[in-house]
């Protein structure tokens, strides 16, 4: 079924079509939410919120990349949670920045090490790194999603890389 047809059914409240969208895009939404918030509980809540509100949000889809549009949608929800002071206080004790000996000249960077290092980045840097480098959004898309300039997106990506290098090579 073409995407536009599927989305039209979702907009009209068709349960099977919404389930199909969740099957096809649930992992994307959960992955973005989890990497941005660093919390499985928050990510699960965000996935629910995104899909519960999807039929009402679909008319706002501009017909470009649905994956990109959905990523922006979940990013905004996740970003709002990041700014919750209550959440920040709750996670403060949980986030322990990884520090392990490693020479990047001699070893290959492992996915596990990178996942751990990303989780320890400051919120503003982690969000940009996840969107740009993990999800493959452009700086234009990142800037739009976060309400920042393209230049600031580039600077934050650079600072994220700088911090990741420090964490992964010490």
């Amino acid at each position, binding site marked *: 079924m073409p995407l536009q047809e599927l989305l039209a059914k979702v907009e009209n409240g068709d349960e099977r079509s919404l389930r199909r969208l969740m099957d096809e895009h649930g992992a*994307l939404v959960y992955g973005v939410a989890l990497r941005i918030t660093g919390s499985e509980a928050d990510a699960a809540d965000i*996935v629910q919120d995104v899909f*519960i509100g999807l039929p009402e949000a679909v008319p706002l889809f501009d017909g470009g990349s649905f994956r990109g549009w959905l990523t922006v949608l979940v990013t905004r929800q996740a970003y709002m949670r990041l700014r919750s002071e209550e959440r920040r206080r709750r996670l403060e004790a949980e986030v322990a920045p990884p520090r392990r000996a490693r020479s990047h*000249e001699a070893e290959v*960077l492992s*996915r596990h090490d990178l996942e751990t290092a990303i989780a320890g980045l400051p919120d503003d840097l982690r969000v940009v790194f996840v969107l740009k480098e*993990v999800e493959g959004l452009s700086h234009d898309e990142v800037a739009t999603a976060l309400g920042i300039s393209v230049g600031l997106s*580039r600077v934050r990506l650079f600072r994220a890389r700088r911090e990741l290098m420090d964490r992964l090579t010490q």
Partner: protein
Amino acid sequence: MKHPTEFQVSLFVDGDLPSAKGRELEEHFDVCDSCREYLEFLRELKAVARELDAPEPPDIADEVIRRRIAAGSA
């Protein structure tokens, strides 16, 4: 040329430098081990980031449908 800044190398990795500046950096990487090493780290970081797996999402479909029905909008 003198060493590029780390920010310039970051822009280079993303192809965000003007072409003339990019060529200048390429020439520098050919002769400077430390800058080339930094470049290679950033490239590796970029490649591994794209390989990260999407985590398995929780099964929330039934809950989403239930909440939509409860809200009277499904």
